[in-house]
Structures are given as structure tokens and as C-alpha cells.
């Protein structure tokens, strides 16, 4: 029994920003009924047919991202253009604690199920909508995907180096946190419902969620009047608070290999200076100008040059062993294969569980970064094929007979 075995979710989410939310809840045992459109074969979620692919085969059942984001869910098809389809959706809503979606604003209402209608069907329903700018506000009709959300929320701008364009995030960071914060929204509303009996609509704007993660830099502007659009900002490989030096990413031995060092305090510096000072090319580490934080900050550019030169001929993992051994945070910038295959920080955690997908075969997926002592997460079931659980949901859960389900298929309702 999972922690959320008593919770049922009527799930219209897709991509990662939505699907990631119900994925987490499903891994904790919630019964997530993922509803897809049989007419378009679920292609509203473009990840269904997108890379990565496990082999040369292509198609809507083979998209590796879709597979990753929809484990542990039940998958059904339902054609909401039909009256019978809408009736069946009402039946699913009636037995669901939560309706979750990340369509563009207004789409679910257009399909005949605005929040008011959902409440008519089930008074304490929790409706969580998540789109780029939310359902309410001047930009509600604007189109987004992860990079646009990140740009408009300030997260792209705050990632970069001086005198260069924004580096931004090299992936849809806010699709992950869109999903995570949407999961938080669903859980928060469930906790509230358990205490008050009241459901509600949670209108999530993914861009707002992103802006809520900018950190103290916002207060530096509102309190101190210091804009971030200023020379030298951002330099996000250095520390924005607390002050630390050295604190940067340096070249290491090999093609495009890198090493990160964060010297937290004077104790770290002493340990670091001992390690570096003991090497043939490290006598500079004994310089007394570097003994205090104030000195290291004053001479930060010089320190960075020194460390860049010192790290460049050294193997990143050898340096990691040396610095961690001295209790100083200094680590390799790891490539995907390194952190997934050879890092006990992930492998011993059980972070990459295997599932058996009916079309793809055996494949690993992202796990969860938490372990619960009594009701831990479990990811064993792969993402459903299109309509894979129609018999289970329409039969066992909604109580339709095999003949009735057959008729639905014939009529193009499922």
C-alpha cells in the first residue's frame, strides 16, 4: 500500500511540466488515470513520439521522455468530442479527488469542463490547472514552453558569466519544477480538503512558480534598489551569498572536462592550501594574502587564474578524491554517464529503477530523491500504451460490461 493509495487523480497532464506532477503522486501509490485522445492517438503530448529512442524503431509508443514521465499511471482513451465521452468523463470526475491538467488556458473549459462544471459533478473536487502564465492575467493566452517560462521568470537571465549573453538553463528546468510545484499544489489542496472538506481551484502559472525561485536577488532589488542588469552580473559560478572564494568552475585534464571548488571558510582554505601547497606547482597557495576571506575576495580574479592553471593538468576525479579527503567541497563536473553509472551517490540510492515497457522493452527511468521509512515510493510499472488500461478503468472501476466497452470502441468513444 502506498501513502496515497486512497487518492484518485483524473489526469489530463502531459509533457513534463504536468506529467511530472502526477508521476510523483503515482509513485506514492495514487491511482492516476491518464486520459488521452484516441483521435489524435495522444499526440497532444508531443513527447509520445519524440527522442530519445531505445533503438531504430519510431512511433507514438516509443518516445523515451513520455515513457519516463508517465510511469505508474493508468492510461485510457476518451473522445471528448462525443456525448458519451463527456458522460464517461463526468463519471471519472465524480470518483476522483483531483482533476489535473496543463493544457493551454481555457482548453478544458472549451471541452465542456470548466471548474464550475467540475464542481457540479463533485462539490469537493480539487482542480489544479498549470500553464505558462496561468488562467487569469493579461498574458493568460500567451504560448510557452520551458525555455520561455524560464526567460520570462528571470531564471534565464540569472544564469551566466560576465560580458557574455545569458547562458540560461540547458534544458527545461521549469518543466521539472513546474511538475514538482504542481505536485505540491495538489498535495497542499488535499491536506486542506482533509481538514475542511472543501475543494478548490489552484490556478498555477508556471512562470510565477519560476519567479518564486529567483532567491534573495529579488530583495536586493526591492530593498536596496540594486538592479541585476548591471555590469559584471550575473557571474553565477561565483557565490551569490554567502561570500566564498575561491568558488568557481575550472578546466581539468582532458577534452571539455571541468572541476568545481567551493571554499566555504578559512578552515576550508587552510585545508585547500595544504593540499595545493604540497604539489610542485602549488607554492603560490602559501601566499598570506589568501589567508582571510577578505583577502581571497580582494584577489579573487588572481585566485581563479591560479586554480585554473593548477587544475588544468589534473584528472577531475583524482582532484575530487584529494579535496573531499581534505573535507573541502571540490568535485568533478560529471557527465550523464559518469553520474548515472559510476556514482554511489545515485546508484546506492536506487535512483534509476528499471521498468519493462510493452513496446520499448526494459529501460531505466528517473527515480525520486526521497526515501520514506514507512511508505516509500515505488516505480515498477512502465508508462501505459495508448488506452492500455481501458478495460480496467471502464470495466473494473466504472463497472461497464465487456460488451459495453466493445461498443465504446466501435463508436470511437475510446
Amino acid at each position, binding site marked *: 500500500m502506498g501513502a496515497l493509495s*486512497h487518492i484518485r487523480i483524473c489526469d489530463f497532464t502531459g509533457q513534463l511540466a504536468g506529467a511530472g506532477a502526477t508521476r*510523483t503522486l503515482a509513485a506514492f501509490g495514487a491511482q492516476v488515470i491518464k486520459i488521452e485522445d484516441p483521435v489524435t492517438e495522444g499526440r497532444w503530448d508531443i513527447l509520445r513520439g519524440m*527522442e*530519445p529512442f*531505445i533503438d531504430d524503431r519510431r512511433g507514438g509508443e516509443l518516445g523515451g*521522455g513520455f515513457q*519516463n514521465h508517465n510511469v505508474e499511471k493508468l492510461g485510457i482513451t476518451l473522445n471528448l468530442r462525443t456525448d458519451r465521452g463527456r458522460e464517461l468523463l463526468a463519471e471519472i470526475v465524480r470518483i476522483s479527488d483531483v482533476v489535473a491538467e496543463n493544457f493551454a488556458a481555457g482548453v478544458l473549459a472549451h471541452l465542456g469542463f470548466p471548474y464550475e462544471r467540475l464542481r457540479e459533478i463533485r462539490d469537493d473536487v480539487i482542480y489544479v490547472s498549470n500553464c505558462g502564465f*496561468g488562467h487569469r*492575467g*493579461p498574458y493568460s*493566452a*500567451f*504560448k510557452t514552453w520551458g525555455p520561455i517560462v524560464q526567460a*520570462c521568470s528571470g531564471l*534565464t*537571465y*540569472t*544564469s551566466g*558569466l560576465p560580458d557574455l549573453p545569458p547562458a540560461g538553463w*540547458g*534544458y527545461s528546468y521549469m518543466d521539472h519544477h513546474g511538475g514538482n*510545484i504542481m*505536485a*505540491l*499544489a495538489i498535495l*497542499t*489542496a488535499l*491536506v*486542506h480538503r*482533509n481538514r475542511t472538506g472543501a475543494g478548490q481551484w489552484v490556478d498555477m502559472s508556471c512562470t510565477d512558480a519560476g*519567479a518564486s*525561485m529567483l*532567491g534573495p536577488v*529579488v530583495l536586493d*532589488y526591492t530593498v*536596496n534598489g*540594486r538592479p*541585476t542588469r548591471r555590469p559584471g552580473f550575473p557571474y553565477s*559560478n561565483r557565490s551569490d*551569498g*554567502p561570500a566564498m572564494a575561491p568558488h568557481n*568552475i575550472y578546466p581539468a585534464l582532458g577534452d*571539455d572536462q*571541468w572541476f*568545481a571548488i567551493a571554499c566555504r571558510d578559512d578552515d576550508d582554505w587552510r585545508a585547500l592550501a595544504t593540499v595545493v601547497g604540497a604539489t610542485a606547482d602549488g607554492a603560490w597557495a602559501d601566499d598570506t594574502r589568501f589567508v582571510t576571506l577578505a583577502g581571497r575576495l580582494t584577489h579573487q580574479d588572481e585566485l581563479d587564474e591560479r586554480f585554473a592553471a593548477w587544475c588544468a593538468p589534473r584528472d577531475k576525479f583524482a582532484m575530487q578524491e584529494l579535496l573531499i579527503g581534505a573535507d573541502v*567541497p571540490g568535485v568533478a*563536473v*560529471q*557527465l*550523464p554517464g559518469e*553520474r*548515472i553509472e559510476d556514482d554511489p*551517490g545515485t546508484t*546506492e*540510492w536506487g535512483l534509476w529503477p528499471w521498468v519493462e515497457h510493452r513496446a520499448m522493452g526494459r529501460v531505466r527511468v528517473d527515480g525520486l*530523491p*526521497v*526515501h*520514506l521509512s514507512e*511508505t516509500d515510493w515505488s516505480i515498477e510499472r512502465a508508462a501505459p500504451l495508448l488506452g492500455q488500461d481501458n478495460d480496467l478503468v471502464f470495466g473494473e472501476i466504472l463497472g461497464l460490461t465487456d460488451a459495453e466497452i466493445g461498443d465504446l470502441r466501435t463508436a470511437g468513444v475510446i
Partner: protein
Amino acid sequence: MARKQIGQHLSTEPLPGPDPDAAGPLAGLRVVELASEYAAHCGRLLADYGAEVILIEPPGGAPQRWYEPFVDDVPDPERSLWFWHYNTNKFGVVVDLDDDEGRARFRDLVASADIVVEAEPPGHLAALGIDDADLRPGHPGLIWAAVTPFGRTNPRAHEPATDLTILANAGPVWSCGYDDHTIPPVRGGGNQAYQTASIHAAIAVLVAVLHRDVTGTGQFIDVSLHAASNVTTEFASYGWLVNQTTVQRQTCRHASVHPTQTTVAESADGRYQPTGVPPRSAREFRILIDWVDDLGWRDELPEVALLELGEERGGVSMTEMFEDPLVAEIFGAGREVLVAIASRLTSYEFFVQGQTRGMALPVIYAPEEVMEDVHFRARGFPVTMEHDGIGRPVTYAGAPFVMDTSPWRLLRHAPRLGEHQDTLGGP
């Protein structure tokens, strides 16, 4: 002043919000939090949604009170904006866990609480006799979340870590940076490793609350910063998991196994402006032609003739592009027209005009521009609160999600050191 232009086009009318006096969704839950940098954001999420969060600091205050930036740049433990940001709505008490009296007070507070959130080094609380294993047996409903770099029992559990080293070691840094790979890869700003783990901690805590609602049983939650960032890298992880490919970083766009193209303009106000995907369908060509015409720039942009050809052909496909030089020219014209528009408008004008026409385009906002923007203001995102001690109100970034019935609210600024000692600090 670019900022003056923001809000010209759209209504700033505030939207109807929830009842301002309604209780938050987590009202009635009491959380004891040991001050930390790893888990401060977890406590804040719970506090802002209505939980009563008691922040325990050691004598002299938590180290985070000395984190930059400071109000008016005056270093002072009551003026750290880092501390203010991550500790809104919390109640503050000082408890010395290194003496018997303090540990007794901690036990009392835990006995009164539903949830403990802490980020102590693995083994530290056990050595003091006040760990989960010591206190949960007497309090079976207690939920205890420990946020540590690698989890409590991992082989790497005792390695030191900061936001930078977690993001470097766990994947995000590899995917971020510039096309030029002689430039180091980049850590995104804002201590995202801590926030990522804190969001997962908050999710797990609420999962445990829902389980306790049914069974009465609490539990221990082990949260790994390293694992959290490892599963927050999108294609970099699942691309490897599926077919063992490795993504490469690119300037301000997705890291990719194969290099991807992008088009960028310098806007009229000197900003870096991605210009989006050029038109392909007939409808998209028409939208772009209309945009040029509405701006009155047709005479200056002869490429419009090619856009009309694109529309007449009923759009262009990617496969045609490689086979038919005319199609390649049409597609290129779309790109050039977008760049021309982007370079003649301010970044904000380009964003709003394009989006209003149905084109998925960004504006790259700096944080201060977010706080001034019409969308954020209309949704009540900037929240201003009176602040005793500095003689002026303070505006904070607002809710990650808006709840209709049980609102997110800022009721209290971060506690002064020992501010609630009399009511919560014990005898």
C-alpha cells in the same frame, strides 16, 4: 527607461483574489525546523501556505544571518536579505542543542509538533540523543524530514557539499553554458540545488501527512540534494538511460546530442533576444506578414514577398527545405524578417506583439523586471509587507501557485533572533 514601457499595453487591473482572511491550506500543522541553508526553502514553502513553522537557531543566531546581501549593504544579523527571503512567516526561537536544558526544550517542541525539518550532518543529532530514532518512538505520528547532501546512509553521506558542488556533480552544470566549450560550463543562479531538494522535501512531507491522516502513523524522510538535482536534468538523464547518448551544452538553449540552430537578435534596447521558430505553415506566414504590415515596414523588408510565396504554397516542410532551394530561401526569409523586427523593437515590444499574434516568443527578464511586469502585478505576485526595524515596507516575490479558497500569504517577515522566545522558547 525600458521599465517605463512595461505595462503600457495591457491592463494592470488586479485580479479578484481569495478571501484575504481565510486560513492557509496547511493551517493547524506545526513544524519544528532547525535553521539551515539546505532546507530553509522547505520550511518557507510550508510556512507560506499556513503551517506554523518554528525556526530553531543556536545561541548567537543561524550562520545564514550573515549571508549576503544585506539591507543597505550593512552587515548585520538582522539585515541579511538571504535570511529574510528564506524565512518568511516563521516563528523564531533560540535553543542550544549543546546543553541539556536546550535539548529538553527541543524534545518538548518536537512533542508538540507534527513535522520536523532539519539538515544536520548525518550522525550529529544521534550523537546528541535527539534524532528521529530517539524521538519518534514516543510520538508515533511524527513526520521527520532530514535534508542532506547525499542522504543519511549513502556511502558519500559525509562528503562536504555546497550548491555549486552539488549542481556540478549531479548534472545540471554539464548541460548549461555556451556554444564555445573553452568557456566553463555554468551553474544557474539562486542556490537551485537547495531549492530543488527543499521542494522535494516539502512534497514528501505532505505525502506523509496524507498517509498519517488515514493511518495515524508518521515516518522518517531521507532527502538527498545530490539525487534531487540528478533527476532534474531532463533529457541529459533520460537520454542516457534510454540510449546512452550524451548532451552537449549550447548558448541559452537546450543542451543537445546534435547541435541545434538558433537565431538571436539584439533588440532596439540592446537586449539579447531569441527570435523563435520561423514560420512553416501558411497561417504562420500570414501572421508574420500581417505583423510587418501593421508596423508599416513592408517597403523596408523585401523578404516579405518570399513570405507571401510561402503562404501561397500552403506552407513549407522541413524535408522540402533540404531538396528545394526556393523553400530554403522562403524559410530563411522568415528567419530574417523575425530578426529585423526583433532588432527594431524593444525586447518587451517584440515579446508582447508576437505573443498577441499567437507566436511563442520570450522576453528575457532580469528579476527586477519580473517585479515590475504587468502580468506579475495583475496576479498579485509582488507582495509588500511592513517591516519594523528598517523604516520602510519591503516587497517580496510571491506565491508559486495561487489557491482560491486557502491562500498563500505573507503575514510575518523573517523572525528577529529569538523573537518568539517568550511564547515558544519555554521556561
